[in-house]
Each structure stands twice: as C-alpha cells, then as structure tokens.
C-alpha cells in the first residue's frame, strides 16, 4: 500500500516510501526531521503547516505526501538557510512579532508570498493576506508591524 515518491526538499533530492494517508507536513516532520513546519488544526484553518510546493504556499496538512511526488518542496528551514527570509526574520525580532513561535514559520512563508506579489502592501492588505494564519499569542498588531518593516527594508535594497 505504501508508495515510493521522489521529490526535492530544500534543494536536496529525497526518495522515500510513504503511506498514502500521510500528509506532506507529517512526512516533512516525521520522516525527514524538518520540524520547522508545525501542525495545528489539521483541517486547513490555522496555517501553521504552511510550506511551499512548486514555489507556491500550500497547506501541508491538506496535501498528501504522495501528491508531492516529483515536486519541489521548500520549508521554513530552506528559506531560512538560503537567506530568502532574512529581512522578515530580522523584522519579527525587532518588532516582537512572536511569543511562543508556533505560528511563525507559517506566517513567514505567507508573508514572503505576499511581498513577492506586492512589495508595498498596506496594513489592510497585510491583514487580509495573513487572515488564514492564526496566532494565539502575539496579537496581530506586531506581526503586521513586522511585515511592514520588512517590506520597507526589502524595498530599500536589503534582503
């Protein structure tokens, strides 16, 4: 019943046998040990499991690992190591945009997608884009502040 899949995860080729019911986020966390992506609600509501497949953000809990066969998958570990989210990470630190950090990986990936589409979002646009990512501690004010700060840094030529 297990199926063999081959995919690229954070730039490395991976081949594994997985049960069809295994979600992509469980595969990344349990099989590959990439525990940066988190698991909250497991039904698409909270956004903690956000990862990139083929360059686009998706819910890791609503994607099966078998569906990622042949795909290019990136997690918060990958975009952190590559420096792609450095400006956002610095801004989250500066603006106190996290407390427990459970939601943060998903929010970083979602905010990265936003800033790619729209380098100068308004606060309203930031809130709208992040509306599918729940934070249970920080309060969204600081998160919106951080995304705004990162957008300014990136527009100023920093990463």
């Amino acid at each position, binding site marked *: 019943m297990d199926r063999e899949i081959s995919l690229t995860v954070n730039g490395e080729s991976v081949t594994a046998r997985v049960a069809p019911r295994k979600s992509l986020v469980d595969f990344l966390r349990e099989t590959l040990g990439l525990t940066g992506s988190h698991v909250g609600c497991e039904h698409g509501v909270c956004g903690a499991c956000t990862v990139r497949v083929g360059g686009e953000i998706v*819910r890791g809990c609503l994607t099966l690992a078998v569906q990622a066969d042949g795909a290019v998958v990136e997690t918060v570990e990958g975009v952190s190591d590559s420096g792609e989210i450095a400006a956002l990470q610095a801004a989250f630190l500066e603006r106190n945009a996290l407390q427990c950090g459970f939601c943060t990986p998903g929010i970083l990936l979602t905010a990265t997608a936003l800033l790619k589409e729209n380098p100068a979002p308004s606060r309203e646009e930031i809130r709208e884009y992040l509306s*599918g990512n729940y934070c249970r501690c920080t309060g969204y004010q600081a998160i919106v502040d951080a995304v705004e700060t990162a957008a300014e840094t990136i527009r100023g030529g920093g990463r």
Partner: protein
Amino acid sequence: MKPAPFHYEKPASLDAVFSLLDKHGDNARILAGGQSLLATLNMRLSAPDLLIDITGLDTLRGIAVDGGFLRIGALTTHAEVKGSADVAMHAPLLAQVMPFIAHPAIRNRGTFGGSLAHADPAAELPACMLALDAEMEIAGASGKRSVRAADFFRGLYETDLKPGEVLISVAIPVLSAGYRSGFSEFSRRSGDFAMAGLAAHAKFENGVLSDVRLAYCGVDIRAVRAAAAERVLDGKPLNANLLDEAKARLADDLDPPDDLQASGKMKIHLSQVLLGRVLSAMSSASEA
C-alpha cells in the same frame, strides 16, 4: 486528527478514472485540490478506501474563450481564476468573488470544479454559476453531457453528478454589452465561508435594470435565486423605493434555516443589506 488509511491512484487518462470509479463504486472518491476532501478525511467524517487523484489530467486544466463562452477546466485553481485576464474581461463576477474564497495557500490548490462538485451551501461559486447561467460539462464512461447550473445544484452537498461521472469543465456565456455584475458577502472572519453572500448579474441601460439574476449563498441548503426580488427590479428604473420593495420581497424568496453563525431572521436582514450594497456598487460602476 489523521485520516483512516486509504489507497491512492493517480490515473493518466479520463478512461482510467472511469474504470476505477466503476470498479470501486461508493468506496472511491475523486481527489482534486483536496482542500475540502482532505479536511473531511482528517476529521474522519468520511473514510473512503480509495482516492482517485485526477490532478494528472492536464486536459481538465486551463481557461479558454471560444464561441461566446468562457470555458474553465475543472482542475483550474482558484488562484489561476483570480489571476486570469480572460476571466476579468469575460466573467468579471468571478474575478470579484475570488478574494472572498478562503486564503492564498488554499486558493493555490483548491480547484474551480472541486468547489462546484462539493456544493457547499455557503460556497460562493455555485451562486456565481446560477447568476451567470453557466453550464456544467460532465463526462462519464458512456459519454459527455451538459447541465445548466439551475439543474446542477440539487441539495446539501448534492449535485446532478451521477456515480462514475466527473465534472470536466464549466462554460460561462461571455459578458454581453451593457451587463454588469457584483458580489459581496458577510462572514465572521476574512476567508471564511459566507454567512450570506450575493452574486448579482444584470443588464443596466439608462438606469433601468433588466435580465436581473440574484443568487444567494449561505442562506439555504444550496445556492438559490431570489425570483420575486428579481421580478420587482426587472424593467424599472433603479431608485430607493424600488430597492426597498425588492428587499421586502426577499423575505418571500428566502427561508434561511438558523445555523451556528446566525438565525434565519438575521440572514434575511443580511441578505437585504447585501442587495442594497451590491446593486449600488453595480449602478455606480462606470458604463461598460
């Protein structure tokens, strides 16, 4: 939670899908974007033996304009519809509605056809299909057929799709001269399903509406037209009195059950507010 175990197949042709559906019957489910199905499996609301992943069928993907119709393949994602210039030009209602559907990460995988086949009573797209008089194009082992939206959405999560059939595309008449559309909804949180939503489509000529189509979601077991309110508006100059009359008739058209989000009475009120908002946005839009 984790879903119960299941088998998984990803066929390379529609014929292979039909033979799997034929062989496994009720024990098999089609998997498109998975944004509704996988959530229900994770919650163990259902436990099929086999998922038939149709996302390998590239012929079911894409947007094209041909012979007066905008054709959207069932596997086209919400994000692709949202970003399409053809959709914005020929079916602006769909461009207007997309931001209301879920969130970016879900729109990247959720499909147009999946949303219609799922037929959630609060989903926006079935109401848009009614407002635009779209045709659902369906294929099965014995051939193809088309069904008008009005005959496709039959009940709570229930459509005219028969066992063994696949929704392959939707044909939407391209926007004709003088027509305008509008959408708005109330939801508790941005991206949630609608507590009440209105998709409207009508011809505007010198302030007079005709061919008015008002389709609501979130107020019944399926998307519904508001025929009495449509008749009030049809052929008369739009003004505050006419709008009040149309709002009053909504109470005849709609009989929303109470749900966790709002009472039926509240939903009638929201539907009336939406009618005012959507029509005023449509009438103040520049002449097309």
